[in-house]
């Protein structure tokens, strides 16, 4: 396979031979105490209001409190198990529930799908697995955050979520805290399967290391995420807040196969300094009366580049399909860029497809208005940007939404001047 070159990103060649494809999970801490961690990272932790013990875990400091986390985790897992919900690491799933894994793994994202999906399929060693049985509504937000030991599952993670008929699950991925990681390339694959009238809500907050202010270092986040609305009346919701990584290149997508199935995609992507993002979604309408909504908010600062790329395809079979897309870009400063690449491909004339796009700058008037009410320019920008992204942030689970607000404010720092 050839490395794809169509994205609006500038990427040096990756030396695939120099990547370590499997590392034995190590218990050895990177640091002995928080004092050894970079002060800038600690400052961000404090601004986000992350408790001290969690800060240690995130920064890779030796922690005694893991024992507590494990017990919390066990309690939590017991409760879910009683309802028949399976939530475990991928390796455990492969061992304990091989039939489910065999049936669904690769059914939405086959290994032939794309360059990075092939790479992931060849080398992935762990990830997360969720199974919600029929008629069960998962009572809590499932989060990888609970599985502290899974934080370091590494660069080729695999996630598989199966929601049986009439079930519901909300899954949270990522963390607002900047995560330590030595791996530069992250090529994960996420597959979601929603059966009849099932609903899956998948929220991502991504804040991997973006590289320094000169654009050195930082994570490449090349993830393939796709959901299949397999059953009639099923629903898949994607929400993503992307503020980290040097390069973000991903399109959480949905195949609307079941009749009357629904999918929504809400995205906020912030790029600062030399960050690059080429992100968006694909909505593939196959079933009748299928509906999709795309709301994308791109915010560019510094010398960054932020692209929305989306495909809405209405197949011949998709009678009365409906799509609404809205892509708004906000530019801060004069050296950043925003691009929108919407692809619309309609094969059925009963479909209604709408696309709206705006590009705006924060007006000096708005900043002065805030200044006159006592707000510093930096705080004014954070407030205005949060307002701009509100439609998307409101879709996040409550406790995450608060953190996301702060995270966006932090991403704006140093943007003024």
């Amino acid at each position: 396979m050839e490395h794809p070159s169509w994205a609006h990103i500038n990427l040096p060649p990756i030396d695939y031979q120099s990547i370590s494809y499997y590392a034995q999970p190590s218990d050895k801490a990177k640091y002995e105490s928080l004092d050894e961690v970079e002060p800038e990272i600690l400052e961000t932790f404090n601004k986000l209001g992350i408790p001290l013990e969690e800060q240690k875990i995130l920064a890779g400091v030796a922690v005694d409190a893991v024992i507590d986390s494990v017990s919390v985790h066990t309690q939590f897992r017991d409760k879910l198990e009683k309802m028949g919900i399976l939530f475990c690491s991928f390796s455990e799933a492969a061992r304990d529930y091989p039939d489910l894994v065999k049936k669904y793994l690769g059914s939405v994202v086959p290994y032939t799908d794309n360059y990075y999906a092939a790479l992931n399929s060849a080398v992935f060693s762990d990830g997360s697995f969720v199974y919600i049985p029929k008629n069960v509504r998962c009572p809590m937000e499932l989060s990888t955050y609970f599985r502290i030991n899974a934080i370091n599952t590494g660069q080729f993670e695999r996630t598989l979520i199966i929601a049986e008929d009439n079930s519901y699950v909300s899954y949270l991925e990522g963390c607002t805290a900047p995560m330590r990681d030595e791996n530069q390339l992250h090529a994960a694959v996420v597959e979601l399967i929603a059966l009849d009238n099932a609903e899956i809500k998948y929220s991502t907050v991504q804040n991997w290391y973006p590289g320094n202010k000169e654009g050195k270092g930082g994570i490449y986040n090349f993830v393939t995420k796709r959901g299949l609305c397999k059953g009639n009346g099923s629903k898949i919701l994607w929400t993503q807040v992307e503020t980290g990584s040097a390069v973000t290149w991903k399109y959480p997508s949905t195949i609307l196969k079941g009749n009357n199935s629904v999918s929504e995609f809400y995205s906020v992507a912030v790029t600062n300094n030399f960050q690059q993002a080429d992100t968006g979604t694909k909505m593939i309408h196959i079933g009748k009366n299928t509906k999709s909504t795309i709301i994308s908010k791109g915010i560019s600062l510094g010398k960054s580049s932020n692209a929305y790329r989306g495909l809405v395809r209405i197949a011949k079979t998709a009678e009365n399909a409906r799509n609404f897309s809205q892509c708004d870009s906000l530019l801060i400063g004069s050296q950043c860029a925003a691009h929108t690449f919407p692809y619309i491909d309609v094969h059925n004339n009963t479909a209604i497809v709408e696309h709206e796009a705006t590009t705006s700058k924060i007006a000096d008037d708005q900043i002065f208005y805030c200044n006159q009410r006592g707000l510093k320019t930096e705080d004014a920008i954070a407030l205005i940007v949060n307002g701009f992204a509100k439609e998307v942030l409101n879709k996040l689970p409550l406790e995450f939404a608060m953190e996301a607000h702060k995270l966006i404010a932090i991403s704006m720092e140093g943007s003024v001047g």
Partner: protein
Amino acid sequence: MLTIKDLHVSIDGKEILKGVNLTVNPGEIHAIMGPNGSGKSTLSNVIAGRDVFEVTQGEISFLGKNILPLTPEDRACEGIFLAFQYPVEIPGVSMTNFMKAAIEAKHAYHGTTPPSAGEFLQMIKEKQQLVGMSQSLTGRAVNEGFSGGEKKKNDIFQMAMLDPKLAILDETDSGLDIDALKTVAEGVNTLKTNDKAFIVITHYQRLLDYIIPDFVHVLHDGKIVKSGDKSLALELEEKGYDWIK
């Protein structure tokens, strides 16, 4: 409270204010009138610290402090409030959040403790009633989808919340119907105390039927060419500005 001495201001090299002198004491209401382009809005923006204007000469002191080196936000926190001629919209930012941020900024500046969430919401409710805003503001975004009159009333509401020492109303009456005008004026009159001062900038005399000024100044071609009491406003209404020029 506010002393302006020989103030010269330019924008893009063009001189707009050409030596303005003005003294405002606590408890006073000053009206500044004048034809279009005389520099009224420039004066209010310069007091508030808008940086597109360049002060080439003169001084502005507020409560004995030279405020020219201060940022707009510091001037606001010192107690200067500007009700805008054209209040801007900030989409998606709720009035509650906006006011909370503003009040917290003011408390941070003075090193005092901001009100609790409960106290704050109570304050919003009270001030809203005080300025006669019928519709609940709390869920709405800053000026988004507001009518012209609502935007102006919203500025008066913000003034009530922030409790400034000096409030400048920059053509707050323009575009208001008579009922909205009365509401705005009543808001100002309720907020008036002996230790506060107001500068009311207007084209028309009619606002001054409701907000009675202690002094009326006529600004023409960047200078205050005539000052008097409220009867001057009536005279202007009758004769226009030509006789002063």
